[in-house]
């Protein structure tokens, strides 16, 4: 499914997710002006991004796709979106008793609190005027945040970190294919990859990673993106009805070395 069709299903409250969406306060943001970057941290080149969170700003989970209008989505679909919503509702029901398990899902400190704090965006767009749709030519787009982050490094003549150059790789890069219809269920393990060496098998369901409950592929990407390689992350996995623990090994160059 392409991203636009998926988004259309979400906006229309597709029957598969309508009752779930009714249990959320749903907010649709179509401009990045004044976006709170201390809270909303994701791959700003995405074509669709969603956050499930508490009113106190505690994030339950993320859901995302970076595919285009005509491309088949790798990580999204109404089925997995519904499962992510269901899991987020479960986390909400368990909150705040489960707050410690959500600690790793929370945003990290950032140098720029809103897009307009980046010099290139400040020069072009000025300061945000507040909530609501701003004028056409003053509209900041998500991908412009990504561009501004990179420009910031170029301007400072510092080496751009790989985390910024190659953000949020899909787990395929270390050999783990995840089913786009599920939360974080293994659909393929490529031979000779670190995922194969770590012991993953098709059908494994990743319940937690680095102690965080996984409600989507985007959640897996959040953990691996923010890991400090070389690293070995602990995954709690459901295999044939039994919980087992497996490592996810990230080599120093895991972002640029396919599998």
């Amino acid at each position: 499914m392409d991203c636009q069709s998926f988004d259309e299903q979400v906006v229309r409250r597709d029957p598969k997710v309508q009752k779930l969406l009714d249990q959320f306060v749903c907010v649709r943001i179509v401009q990045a002006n004044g976006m709170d970057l201390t809270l909303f941290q994701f791959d700003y080149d995405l074509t669709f991004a969603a956050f499930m969170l508490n009113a106190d700003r505690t994030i339950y989970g993320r859901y995302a796709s970076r595919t285009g209008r005509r491309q088949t989505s790798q990580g999204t679909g109404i089925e997995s979106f519904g499962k992510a919503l269901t899991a987020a509702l479960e986390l909400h029901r368990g909150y705040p008793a489960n707050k410690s398990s959500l600690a790793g899902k929370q945003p990290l400190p950032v140098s720029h609190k809103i897009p307009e704090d980046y010099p290139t965006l400040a020069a072009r767009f000025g300061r945000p005027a507040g909530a609501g749709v701003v004028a056409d030519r003053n509209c900041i787009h998500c991908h412009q945040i990504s561009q501004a982050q990179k420009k910031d490094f170029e301007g400072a003549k510092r080496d751009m970190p790989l985390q910024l150059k190659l953000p949020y790789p899909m787990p395929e890069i270390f050999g783990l294919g995840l089913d786009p219809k599920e939360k974080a269920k293994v659909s393929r393990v490529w031979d000779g990859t670190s995922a194969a060496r770590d012991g993953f098998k098709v059908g494994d369901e990743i319940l937690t990673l680095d102690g965080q409950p996984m409600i989507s592929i985007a959640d897996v990407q959040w953990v691996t993106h923010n890991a400090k390689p070389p690293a070995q992350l602990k995954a709690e996995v459901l295999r044939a009805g039994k919980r087992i623990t497996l490592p996810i090994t990230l080599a120093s160059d895991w972002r640029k070395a396919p599998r």
Partner: protein
Amino acid sequence: MPARLPALLATATLLVAAPQLIAQEGRGGLLAADRAEAAAAGHWIYNDLPKGFADAQRTGKPMLVVFR
């Protein structure tokens, strides 16, 4: 409000769509219409995060924030 969806979707897509689309004229008009349509539909809080937080606080519901 299915009849209103095409304008809503076409406009929302522009936020993260290809830069050449973003540069096209008339986007401001589309955004204004999109906002009105979404408000009329009533399902989504449109581009107003503080209202979303206030509603979540008041109702005790979790929030879903979609960036598009």
